[in-house]
């Protein structure tokens, strides 16, 4: 069987001898392929060393990458449970909490009791001592300020009763909750329970071995509990910091200062349609719209204005560029203007505009006009005059001469020759290329905005630099993607109508 399909060695050699060029060229090609592959590999290895990629990736803070990514579509609510030495507690929330100024979420259950305390001046001062704050604790300074005021108010010995939290239960999800009572923190996650004793000062003692989701760097120090996507918590001697993560964009329409905050959509709608005026000066509809536009967290109006600036930059820049490139390209095309000097001069001018690059033009015009869309328009205009001029003149050089000759032969003026002999051939190409660059500039306008030329780029960049507004970044990216896809499809539709089906 094998013998019939596979020729003998002798036969193979005979065939090889008959067609040497086939085998030879194939081995050559193989060698070349191997060389190219080796060259690429070598280059990648070199770049790995050149940019010290391995080192940088190893030193990167990948833990924070996950939480930054999660911030795109989630938000955290951060109750802080302060534990006093006697086991009583006080619960506070972060400043600008997404739950508003007076949060009382149903996933935090508090059992309160009234205690009678004897407060002396030294004790109050002790309480006001700023505690060691964790790296994630933004509340610490404010808590300290509050304590100091309390200390000033209570300068003498007095006995009074006050309401404190005796037991706090925070529920993350069905299998995860943290219970704090009598200086003992009980954390349950995935069927395991960890009991931690805290002393109300700075010592944290776990009872029993730590489960996988809990970490403690040194005995007695804070314990970090990570519950995956649902959040995490940090147990310190005098404080339990809860980080409960929720899916979605918090307060997307109304911020916490708005009278419509926290109301279900149906109630908001009925308020707008038939409710009594919240602000006597204006209707509820205009109040709601105003609250949405000036939402402190999402800044809708500002984002939309900046986005419009970006769109305008691309539109006006490309339009002007094609308007200026249009007459110039006739000078650059050697078959239209048979003057070598003019051709070369205009072509080199186009090359100059292109090679200086949009980025340098953007910096230049930002200095000239000040930051804003005018700088962006000018940068796009100047660069694309070069690019479109080059493309247009190349299109002109490739036209069919017969139509021109036909028009010329009936005695038309030079202008009429261009109008009826040349323009009908190139106009669809010109328009199509201008449309293409319009679409492409909508994309690049974002990035030149980031260097100061106006538009959403700078806003995006600023939101990213804070490292805490990733949800705003996500919002702007979503808007940009929508705009780009929208213009993409408009431009594609126009181009395929102009050029016939083959354009796309």
């Amino acid at each position, binding site marked *: 069987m094998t013998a019939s399909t596979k020729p003998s060695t002798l036969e193979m050699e005979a065939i090889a001898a008959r067609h040497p060029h086939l085998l030879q060229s194939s081995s050559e090609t193989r060698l070349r392929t191997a060389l190219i592959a080796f060259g690429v590999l070598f280059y990648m290895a070199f770049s790995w060393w050149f940019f010290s990629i391995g080192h940088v990736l190893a030193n*990167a803070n990948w833990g924070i990458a996950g939480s930054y990514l999660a911030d795109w579509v989630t938000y955290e609510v951060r109750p802080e449970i302060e534990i006093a030495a006697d086991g009583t507690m006080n619960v506070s929330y972060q400043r600008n909490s997404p739950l508003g100024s007076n949060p009382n979420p149903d996933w935090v259950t508090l059992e309160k009791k009234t205690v009678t305390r004897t407060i002396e001046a030294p004790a109050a001062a002790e309480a006001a001592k700023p505690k060691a704050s964790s790296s994630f604790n933004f509340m610490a300074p404010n808590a300290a300020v509050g304590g100091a005021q309390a200390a000033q108010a209570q300068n003498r010995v007095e006995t009074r009763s006050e309401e404190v939290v005796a037991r706090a239960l925070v529920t993350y999800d069905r299998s995860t909750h943290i219970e704090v009572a009598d200086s003992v923190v009980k954390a349950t996650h995935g069927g395991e329970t960890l009991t931690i004793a805290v002393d109300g000062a700075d010592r944290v003692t776990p009872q029993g071995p730590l489960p996988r989701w809990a970490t403690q760097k040194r005995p007695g120090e804070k314990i970090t509990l990570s519950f995956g996507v649902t959040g995490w918590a940090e147990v310190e001697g005098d404080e339990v910091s809860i980080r409960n993560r929720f899916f979605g964009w918090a307060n997307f329409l109304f911020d916490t200062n708005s009278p419509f905050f926290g109301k279900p959509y149906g109630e908001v709608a009925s308020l707008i349609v038939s409710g009594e005026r919240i602000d006597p000066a204006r209707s509820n509809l205009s109040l709601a719209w105003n609250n949405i536009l000036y939402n402190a967290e999402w800044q809708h109006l500002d984002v939309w204005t900046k986005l419009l600036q970006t769109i*305008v930059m691309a539109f006006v820049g490309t339009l002007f560029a094609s308007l200026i490139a249009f007459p110039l390209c006739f000078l650059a095309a050697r078959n239209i203007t048979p003057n070598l000097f003019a051709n070369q001069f205009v072509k080199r001018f186009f090359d100059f505009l292109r090679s200086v*690059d949009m980025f340098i033009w953007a910096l230049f015009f930002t200095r000239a006009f*000040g930051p804003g*869309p*005018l*700088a962006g328009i000018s940068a796009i205009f100047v660069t694309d005059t070069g690019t479109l001029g080059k493309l247009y003149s190349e299109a002109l050089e490739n036209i069919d001469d017969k139509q021109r000759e036909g028009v010329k032969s009936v005695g038309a003026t030079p202008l009429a020759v261009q109008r009826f002999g040349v323009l009908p051939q190139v106009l669809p190409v010109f328009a199509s290329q201008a449309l293409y660059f319009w679409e492409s500039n909508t994309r690049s306008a974002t990035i030149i905005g980031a260097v100061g030329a106006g538009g959403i780029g700078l806003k995006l960049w600023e939101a990213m630099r804070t490292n805490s507004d990733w949800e705003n970044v996500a919002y702007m990216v979503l808007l940009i993607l929508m705009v780009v896809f929208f213009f993409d499809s408009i431009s594609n539709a126009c181009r395929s109508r102009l050029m016939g089906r083959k354009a796309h």
Partner: protein
Amino acid sequence: MATSVLSRQLSESGALLERHWQELNARRRLYTFLGLALLALTLCSSLWFANGSNAGKFFDRLPHLFDFVGDLMPRDAMEIVRAMFDLPSPYDDGSFKYNYPDGRLYLTDSLYLPEYFHKMLETVNIAIFSTVLGALFGFPLCFLAARNLMPNPWIRGIVRRFMEIVRAFPEVVIAGFFLAILSLGPIPAIAAVSIHTIGALGKLFFEVVENADMKPEEGLRAVGSNWIERVWFGIVPQVLPNFTSYFLLRLEINVRASTIIGAVGGGGIGELLRLSIGQGHEAKTLAIVMLLFTTIFAVDQVSAWLRRRLVGDQAFQLAQ
């Protein structure tokens, strides 16, 4: 009246035809006029909006357009050369403005690379590396997105959507995200440029593949080869010149992109340029601008020449 004159000369159906033609023509003119008017209106309102939201107003700033150029004039022309080649300046007063040798890279004890050449090299290398990286990922993806090779519309659709999103995703966000995780340096720029390149090259590649001649593939199918063999021996040899040409075109674009990404925190020459413009170091700025201009020009010309040799006069200008 014209119609009455026409009706006398033409038959009844001829007059109808004439009238229809006139109406059609008038309507076309009206549409053209309306379109142009709409365009002009959009343009004017856009300009008004742009001018209103700009920090400086156009007509206020126009006379001062070239003030900035005046600020850029160094003390003497040699200063630019000194800045570019890291030569000690006679004006050195201890500030950064005239301290050129500060950033030089010593290859050996005495042999050094001037700072700007080093950074320019870094930027070009970022561009090459990211283009190679993007092409390596875009190459396998493009065959999955081509209609003639991937009959399954689901896989094709997913791959195409992926490429579209990756292409439209703002580069500055990718750079900013990696900047937040990694330390300052070229890697955020590499990530941003190469991720964008995957989408851009993937799209160009699959359009080439869709225009490929399917006869070799058919032959290979007839002798029973599998999908990978059909792609590798039937399609790849005929699309490779075009792929290389697009690769070079993308390289040109990426040199610019990596410069600009550098300016927003990705290292390389872009960052230096932004800093030196901001700090008003004239000689340094001009040296960098000249270096950048020369490099971009050289890369463009070499790549255009190579592409012309590879694929002849086929127009690839539309691709970006």
